[in-house]
């Protein structure tokens, strides 16, 4: 489903060029749960931006569902993000002063989904993310960190994307809430068969995935199945 071939990315700041990715190659199949792990400055964020169609590589190829995404224009990338990718960010990025339901429905606005259908799909997504129905009409700034991240997960699910990209989803959460959120990802992966890519710098977090791609200084250090995988039991 995802094919990354010799991808490099160079940032040009004035006269200084900085190569964040120095040739990365891997494939991810549908239904996988992969963690991309590396310390800050390793190039994992750059990789996340390219995987998420937020940015294009300087050289190399990126195929998403057999479509070459590496040379698309900004508006075409927006279409890819809208239809095929769901994002979960470290800082949640919910709309303040909007209800939970409305936050989840925002992607559907850009996909021009019919008004009647939006509500049904938003509710389904919230349930899938394990969000308590009694809080659907709460404002997003009245929720706890764990609840907020579930809303963000529901928002990422609502367009039925093939790929869910989670960028440090537990970075702003305490360990216990983080575990619950990671458990949600595991459940989405196993029960609903969603492809999930988890970007993190923490080994503990990465161990919740089935496969870990280790990245350092813009190169892949290792790419293997997770030993001692942590599985969160969900009720």
């Amino acid at each position, binding site marked *: 489903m995802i094919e990354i071939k010799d991808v490099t990315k160079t940032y040009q700041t004035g006269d200084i060029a900085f190569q964040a990715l120095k040739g990365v190659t891997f494939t991810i199949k549908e239904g996988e749960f992969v963690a991309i792990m590396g310390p800050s400055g390793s190039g994992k964020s750059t990789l996340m*931006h390219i995987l*998420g169609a*937020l*940015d294009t590589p300087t050289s190399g190829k990126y195929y998403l569902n057999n479509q070459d995404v590496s040379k698309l224009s*900004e*508006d075409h990338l*927006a*279409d890819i*993000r*809208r*239809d095929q990718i769901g*994002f979960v*960010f470290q*800082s949640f*990025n919910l*709309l*303040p*002063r*909007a209800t939970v339901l*409305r936050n989840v429905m*925002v*992607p559907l*606005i*850009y*996909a*021009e989904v019919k*008004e009647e259908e939006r509500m049904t799909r938003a509710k389904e997504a919230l349930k899938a993310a394990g969000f308590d129905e009694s809080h659907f009409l709460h404002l997003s700034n009245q929720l706890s960190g764990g609840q907020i991240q579930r809303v963000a997960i529901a*928002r990422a699910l609502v*367009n039925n994307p093939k790929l869910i990209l989670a960028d440090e989803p537990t970075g702003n959460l305490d360990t216990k809430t983080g575990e619950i959120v990671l458990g949600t990802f595991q459940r989405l992966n196993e029960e609903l068969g969603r492809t999930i890519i988890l970007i993190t710098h923490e080994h503990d977090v990465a161990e919740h995935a089935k496969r870990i791609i280790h990245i350092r200084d813009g190169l892949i250090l290792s790419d293997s199945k997770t030993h001692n995988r942590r599985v969160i039991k969900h009720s």
Partner: protein
Amino acid sequence: MKTIDILHETYAALASNKVRSGLTMLGIIIGISSVIAMVSIGQGAQASIQSSIQSIGSNLILIMPGQQRAPGAQVSAARGSARSLTLADSEAITKDITLAKAVAPETSSRYQVTSKGKNSNTSIVGTVAAYPSVRNVEMDMGTFISEQNVKSLSKVAVLGATASEDLFGLDANPVGQTIRINSVVFKIIGVTKAKGGSGFGSQDDMIFIPITSAQRFLAGDDYVSTISVQAKDSESMAEAQQQITDLLLKNHHITDPTLADFSIMNQADILATASSITGVFTILLAAIAGISLVVGGIGIMNMMLTTVTERTREIGLRKAIGAKRADINIQFLIEAVMLTFVGGVIGVLLGWGISIGISATGLIQTQITLSSVLLAFGVSAGIGIIFGYYPARRAAMLNPIDALRYE
């Protein structure tokens, strides 16, 4: 992105910061309402001046004594002191100009007028029987001066409505009573109806007496100050004016028309001159009010730029979940237009209220025209687009990665 969704997003965004949206809108409200109010004052003034010019008669040609200038000399006497028209001129016009329907010569001068215990300084107009038909004067009580009165130098007077009120009080019937004009006793035979209008010298604060009596008992000469000629119809005005000019030049033995010792104008000229003056006046008022509208527009731009900065992360998120540049652009543009449009609607209503209030004070009858309302709407929507364009474009051009990282 569907239109209804854009409107919904816009409403949500504006409602989330009501105070700021309200204050920004206030700039537009003040701008639009002052434009509406100012233009309504200008147009009201224009209408009132036009109606008072029209109230002095219809198809009117006015002949007044003009500059008396010796050939070659640049010294000219002031118009008021010029004495070049006489009753003979008026009679010649009556006799020779067939296009003239009625001719009314008049003398006009201010004298001290006394009635029982009351004293006033009023314009005394000496004129003839044709005056009411030429100058649109209607009688309230009694009769106007007759031809017989003029022939026999009768000491009779017709009071204007205001003059009657000043000398005899409101709702009194002074017909049959006497007044003294410059110590000469005149008998009142009538009172005219009020014409209203105060723009062009009140037509009501006058006392009419036979022109012959005015010349004999008050002025002591036989000059007239104005000859009013009513043309047959509006088409024959220009021709009648030309014929009168030729006749008077001939009678006054003047060969060079530029040296004419009288000036002649018709009502249309006066109207056009007054209209152009009030038009400039209206534009001036609108321009001053327009400045506040521009200031309001800059307020909109300022707020939109602040909003874009504040909502950088939201913009980043929207882009990440699939919003295109055009979606972001239109959303922020509509926000600005919405502010100015709603501000415009409130501004029009407020301006309307102000102009009704001004009318109610009685100072001036204001007039709101559809064109000024439409213009105000157009301008306010235009301001939204112009001042919203740059902030919206800035929002649309944001890179989603940088926007998401923005702290």
